[in-house]
């Protein structure tokens, strides 16, 4: 299977801020098409394409737009707070195809009747923020943003907002809270942002990659997009492949591509394959059996996992799984926002036990206690962050628990016999 060129049509350019070149490559043709149609028709087109949100939750984009309450002012927010470890595709798109993301935002705003949009970029990407600021200026000068866009009578402005460094803010409600200058705590849903979001106004929040596919769906037709990959989550996908592969990078492949095909695309494993983490740190860790897993929303759910952001971290036989557990649990403990008790306290317990295990001070019953803690967090945590901890934990212990147990037994033995 070979790669697909949708977003990557634009990302090879050496002049990402050359608007003329962007248009020559076919950029802004989706916007022109959209502006000639009724906004309802644009939503219909996106619905027909079957596009699902590429940020992790996989919600149907057209349906989200359709569900936006239409009374009075409303907002469009682009979630560029890419924080999921192992994920770097949004950075890649914004660095290399800044006009594509703007074009997607303009079309989304037109379809949903928003006149103000924000792009919330994580604070760790200052260069990206500068690129996007420049692209906004150029697009405004070119008549693609601002008042009366391309003579259509429609007006839309985009402002950049910079994050402060927080994983949880990647959640859409937390992101809106942060954008409004608050601590980045997630909020209870419902109400969904589409009913009550920024300043209590209806708000659409879409991921960078999701919005970047929108112009291409308009330009190339929803049927072409829907024909790629599985029928229930179609289209191409920007996979982030890192770790022990020969050519780590972003690969645009159809939804439903197998782990094996993706690793092959990335030049193959460096060494002998041992494990793969899919969907980011808040995703499951599988053994070699995962090579045949298809990477799309429904298939990954069937495996008890989640496609998440489409991150694939490849580990060779040199990686000890107590290390993976330790890195993962430290991440959870440090990034828990602290709003709810099960997550605030649970992540610290998990981090403590994982740390002890990795340091050779663990006890074999820690493995059961880790599972138990994760299970409680799954049921009792306020937001998907705390709930997601079962994904890496259960998979790590199911697939690699033996390795950790034998390590603990060895350490205990050495302590006793000296």
């Amino acid at each position, binding site marked *: 299977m070979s790669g697909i060129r949708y977003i990557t049509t634009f990302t090879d350019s050496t002049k990402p801020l050359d608007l003329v070149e962007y248009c020559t490559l076919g950029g802004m043709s989706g916007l022109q098409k959209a502006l000639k149609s009724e906004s309802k028709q644009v939503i219909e087109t996106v619905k027909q394409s079957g596009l699902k949100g590429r940020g992790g939750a996989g919600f149907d984009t057209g349906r989200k737009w359709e569900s936006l309450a239409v009374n009075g002012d409303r907002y469009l927010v682009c979630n560029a707070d*890419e*924080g*999921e*470890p*192992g*994920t*770097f595709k*949004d*950075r890649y798109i914004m660095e290399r195809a800044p006009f594509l993301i703007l074009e997607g935002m303009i079309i989304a705003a037109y379809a949903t009747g928003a006149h103000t949009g*924000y792009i919330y970029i*994580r*604070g*760790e*990407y*200052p*260069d990206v*923020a*500068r690129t996007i600021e420049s692209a906004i200026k150029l697009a405004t000068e070119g008549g693609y943003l601002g008042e009366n866009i391309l003579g259509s009578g429609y007006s839309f402005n985009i402002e950049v*907002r*910079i*994050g*402060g*460094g*927080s*994983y949880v803010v990647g959640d859409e409600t937390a992101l809106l809270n*942060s*954008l*409004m*200058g*608050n*601590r*980045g705590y997630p909020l209870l849903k419902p109400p969904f942002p589409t009913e009550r979001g920024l300043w209590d106004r209806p708000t659409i929040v879409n991921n960078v990659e999701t919005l970047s596919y929108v112009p291409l769906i308009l330009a190339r037709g929803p049927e072409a997009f829907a024909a790629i990959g599985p029928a229930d989550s179609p289209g191409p996908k920007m996979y*982030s*492949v*890192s*770790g*022990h592969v020969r050519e*780590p*990078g*972003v690969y645009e492949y159809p939804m439903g591509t197998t782990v094996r095909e993706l690793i092959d695309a990335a030049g193959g494993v460096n060494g002998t394959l041992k494990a793969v*983490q899919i969907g980011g*740190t808040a995703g499951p860790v599988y053994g070699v059996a995962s090579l045949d897993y298809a990477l799309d929303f429904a298939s990954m759910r069937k495996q008890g996992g989640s496609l998440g952001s489409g*991150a694939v*971290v490849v*580990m060779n036989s*040199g*990686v000890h799984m107590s*290390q*993976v557990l330790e*890195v*993962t649990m*430290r*991440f959870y403990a*440090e*990034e828990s*926002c602290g709003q709810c008790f099960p997550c605030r306290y649970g992540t610290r317990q998990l981090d403590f036990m994982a740390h002890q295990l990795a340091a050779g001070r663990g006890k074999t019953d820690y493995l059961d206690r880790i599972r138990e803690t994760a299970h409680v967090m799954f049921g009792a945590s306020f937001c998907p962050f705390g709930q997601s901890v079962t994904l890496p934990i259960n998979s790590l212990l199911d697939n690699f628990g033996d390795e950790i147990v034998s390590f603990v037994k060895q350490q205990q033995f050495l302590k006793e016999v000296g």
Partner: protein
Amino acid sequence: MHDAKRSSSTPVPTAASILEKYPPERDRILSALHEMQVRVPGKSWISDEELAETARHFNIPLAELDGVVSFYALFSRKKRGEHVIRLCDSLSCRICGSLDLYHHLRERLGITRGMTTGDRRFTLEIVNCLGACSTAPNMMIDDRLVSGLSVAEIDTLLDGFEEVES
């Protein structure tokens, strides 16, 4: 995010002159704080006075603003060194050598995580992902991403910082 390295001839902006660029609307708070934090060259933290002025400007209680600042990892209310090194220790970086970099930085700078060197030149932080995993191991020095460097290359880089300043 603004460049912390300004030429010595540029006058240091006052907190007030930074704040007046931002309308007193809450969605501007994080941007204002980012700029405030690096107001003075080599400074990368938010002082009590700066926090108080920012709270007044945005017309919110000081305690609430302190709560906002303390939520986000990129802001600091404690003094940091002239340069902040943020070493990424995500899984991708960890399995591609982040600990080699950590041990080297620890040895060279004589500090562990969260500490600042005695000469106040460097602060070492560890972060969870810088979103550049294909070039692991990664770190940021101030607002510059530094990717896939060997230990020797890092030495050259840090030497450069020290030469410029001495």
